[in-house]
């Protein structure tokens, strides 16, 4: 499977979990590979050196979510070693050995939690068996303590002295091994600094942009502002005349907007030389069919579509029209949100080297295997002749699920005949993103005379063609409050789009939480109810509705709502005029989150966010509390950044923004304290990269309403919207 062009749905990703399970046996049987003298490779994940140092492979890309540390923690726990003796290496991209290797969907924890503990447990059992053979006793007479096998008589053998002997011991079936009682955990659940922290803090070369190869040159690549437009003319000689420029050439490219687009490559002995050459090339671009599209036209078309009959009805429960007529109060509201860009701080880059028919790539990618397949397909090379090394990513947020920059680097390196590091400018990055799609929701809702939400109608206007939404522009018919409102109708209309779109951290959810949780808040106020109590009543007391992966466990959501209410002093805090608290909750990526925001809004319309509270339920175990807290705080603050600042607009077919002065992100002076509580429930542990983000946005906009009486129905929030 691939989510190259449009991003995979959660369902597709979850389906691949089963497939990944099959590879575990390969990983465990594989003892070959990098073996230094005396080092025993117990399987594809674990090597033990004679001095007891254990090297553990981390299978997935590190993008700042902390997986380089937390996945090996799972193996180390069951292997029973001291964390201080663990060394971590990024695993090679090898899906046959390691299964799906990607960073997306907050899935690294749920997809690997069971398997990687079993990898560790299998290796531990093999060490026990090796000791039993050496002692000529039954394995049952042996146990382990960190780094040693211990015989019941008290004698010990270090793992380092046993590892080589494991070469002759068959790996036990991972399904049959017994896993530790969580009460005995020494590593999982302990706050553990991330493995690279010293290197990060001392500025050591770690990231894609830092890769160096002997004889390496530096490249820039200019593409049309209108997505996919071809080069009309370019003064390549002028580019080549710049000191240090080695090559300048056209790339014909393809029509895939997340693949190799047409453009002009300039290669130099420093990146600055290459960039100067590019600036001299006076490139002009051909006309393109999408050269007239604009955000203004999309907005106007959305209103037209909303006024007419929907193109299709995705869900129709009960009788919405009758229920609206019978409602004690009704509310009508039009919501919208803009395109967004990821803007990871490390601009897109990749280093590539093509030699003797083989392509070697060092890439900060969230999705290495689809990148390899893309390079193979575009360059007509066999995938087995391509090696992709995963390099630490300076942020990902979904942008690096697409590998456009990887295939560009590969193409330019082959064309150049030398190792090349391609690096985008920030302007390249902001104007050639894979954007969170804009969207429009035209709501009507009603509450009955008891104050309950009785009717909900959404005409969702989005992008797509035929019945297929553009990347990350769809909405599930089970999207909350679907299934919780007796009369519920979801209509959908679509318009075509020539802008590449795809997953941005908590895709879908990062927009839908805003509109749904805001409109629920509007209905709570219409009913004269406390917004938090209204949410709890709406959720009711059913334990769970639906089937995986669209199950919704209302009891877990009620749990976090109650917790965040207590944390924030909801309903008990007397606030001065101009201040208010808002609440929102949202289920995404298998996590249940409720958040409260406290704001002050001035008469001039300035917003000061004073504090955020987050209650999170991701199951029974936090693998690394240190990283978990950082993820939740960062995701909540990113939500505030979306709401306060971020917007991509299209005019004349191209993105109008170009750098951080017109695409601003949240800064430290705007970042409130974020208090986090993990509510522990007896469910399998799930991921934390994403689910804290979505409810932060409506918690803020609902707080703004409480503080000022101004209802925010489109993002980003502007001062003009809130002026008294």
């Amino acid at each position, binding site marked *: 499977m691939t989510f190259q062009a449009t991003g995979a749905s959660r369902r597709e990703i979850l389906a691949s979990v089963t497939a990944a399970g099959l590879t575990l046996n390969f990983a465990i049987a594989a003892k070959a590979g990098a073996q230094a003298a005396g080092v025993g490779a117990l399987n594809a994940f674990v090597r033990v050196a004679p001095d007891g140092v254990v090297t553990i492979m981390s299978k997935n890309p590190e*993008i*700042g*979510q902390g997986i380089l540390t937390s996945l090996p923690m799972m193996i180390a726990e069951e292997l029973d070693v001291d964390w201080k003796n663990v060394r971590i290496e990024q695993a090679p991209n090898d899906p046959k050995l390691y299964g799906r290797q990607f960073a997306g969907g907050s899935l690294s924890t749920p997809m690997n939690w069971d398997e990687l503990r079993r990898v560790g447990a299998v290796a531990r059992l093999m060490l026990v068996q090796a000791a039993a053979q050496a002692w000529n006793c039954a394995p049952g007479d042996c146990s382990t303590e960190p780094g040693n096998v211990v015989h019941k008589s008290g004698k010990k053998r270090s793992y380092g002295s046993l590892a080589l002997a494991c070469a002759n011991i068959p790996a036990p079936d991972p399904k049959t091994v017994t896993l530790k009682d969580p009460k005995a955990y020494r590593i999982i659940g302990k706050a553990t*600094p*991330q493995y*690279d*922290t*010293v290197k*990060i*803090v*001392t*500025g*050591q*070369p*770690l*990231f894609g*942009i*830092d890769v*160096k190869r002997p004889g390496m040159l*530096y490249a820039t690549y200019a593409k049309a502002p209108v997505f996919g437009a071809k080069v009309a003319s370019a003064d390549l000689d002028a580019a080549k005349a710049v*000191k*240090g420029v080695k090559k300048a050439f056209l790339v014909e490219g393809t029509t895939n907007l997340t693949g190799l687009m047409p453009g002009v490559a300039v290669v130099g002995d*420093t*990146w*600055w*030389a290459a960039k*100067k050459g590019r600036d001299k090339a006076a490139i002009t671009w051909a006309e393109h069919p999408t050269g007239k599209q604009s955000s203004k036209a999309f907005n106007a078309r959305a209103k037209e579509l909303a006024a007419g009959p929907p193109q299709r009805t995705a869900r129709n429960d009960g009788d919405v029209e009758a229920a609206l007529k019978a409602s004690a109060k009704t509310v009508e509201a039009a919501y919208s949100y803009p395109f967004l860009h990821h*803007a*990871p*701080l*490390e*601009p897109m880059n990749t280093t590539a080297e093509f030699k003797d028919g083989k392509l070697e790539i060092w890439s900060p990618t969230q999705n290495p295997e689809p990148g390899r397949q893309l390079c193979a397909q575009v360059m007509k090379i066999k995938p087995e002749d391509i090696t992709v090394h995963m390099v*630490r*990513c*300076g*942020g*990902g*947020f979904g942008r690096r699920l697409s590998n456009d920059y990887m295939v560009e680097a590969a193409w330019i390196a082959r064309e150049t005949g030398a190792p090349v590091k391609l*690096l985008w*400018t*920030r302007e390249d990055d902001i104007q050639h993103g894979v954007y969170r799609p804009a969207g429009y929701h035209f709501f009507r809702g009603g509450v009955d005379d008891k104050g309950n939400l009785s009717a909900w109608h959404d005409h969702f206007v989005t992008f797509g063609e035929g019945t297929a939404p553009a990347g990350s522009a769809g909405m599930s018919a089970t999207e909350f409050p679907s299934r919780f409102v007796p009369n519920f109708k979801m209509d959908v209309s679509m318009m075509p789009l020539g802008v590449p779109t795809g997953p941005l951290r908590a895709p879908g959810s990062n927009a839908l939480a805003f509109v749904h949780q805001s409109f629920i808040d509007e209905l709570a106020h219409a009913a004269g109810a406390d917004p938090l109590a209204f949410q709890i009543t709406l959720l009711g007391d059913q334990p769970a509705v639906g089937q995986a992966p669209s199950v919704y466990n209302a009891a877990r959501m009620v749990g976090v709502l109650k917790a965040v209410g207590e944390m924030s002093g909801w309903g008990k805090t007397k606030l001065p005029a101009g201040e208010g608290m808002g609440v929102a909750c949202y289920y995404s990526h298998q996590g249940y989150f409720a958040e409260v925001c406290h704001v002050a809004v001035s008469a001039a319309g300035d917003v000061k966010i004073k504090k955020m509270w987050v209650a999170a339920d991701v199951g029974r175990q936090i693998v690394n509390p*240190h990283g978990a807290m*950082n*993820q939740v*705080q*960062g995701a909540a*603050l*990113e939500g505030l*950044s979306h709401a306060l600042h971020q917007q991509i607009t299209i005019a004349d077919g191209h993105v109008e923004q170009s*750098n*951080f*002065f017109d695409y601003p*992100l*949240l*800064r*430290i*002076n705007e*970042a409130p*304290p*974020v208090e986090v509580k993990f509510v522990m429930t007896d469910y399998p542990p799930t991921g934390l990269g994403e689910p804290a983000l979505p409810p932060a946005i409506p918690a803020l906009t609902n707080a703004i309403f409480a503080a000022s009486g101004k209802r925010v129905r489109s993002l980003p929030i502007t001062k003009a919207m809130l002026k008294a």
Partner: protein
Amino acid sequence: MSYTLNVNGKALSADVDGDTPLLWTLRDALGIRGPKFGCGVAACGACTVHVDGQPQRSCQLPTSAVGAAKISTIEGMAAHPIGKKVQAAWMELDVAQCGYCQPGQIMSATALLAKNPKPTDADIDKAMAGNLCRCATYTRIRAAIKRASGQKEA
């Protein structure tokens, strides 16, 4: 043309055009890759270095304008009495997520503490607002600065 720069106490020579921003001379010509490229327009702070002790965005400083100024980068902070403390606080609190902006954050924080050993929250906001953290590790950045300055971490 060849420029000799004083970087982290060493004289280093680079053969680059004079208009080359210091950032690229450090990274591509001298192999000093701690300072990071984020925006190229002094809007993110990832490339922050010290020029005679003052924090500056190296993406905006032409190599020809550096002259005899003393340049310090993140690689030189282990030998800087305040920089060392700031790095230690960053490690103790494990501030980073992706880590890409952190060299720039540490350079700005070190320059702040050199001028103002006990900064208030408002001082921190003012000195650090030029350094973006896309992962939004601001809570820990603030706490680490407080810790490095021996103040209570709120």
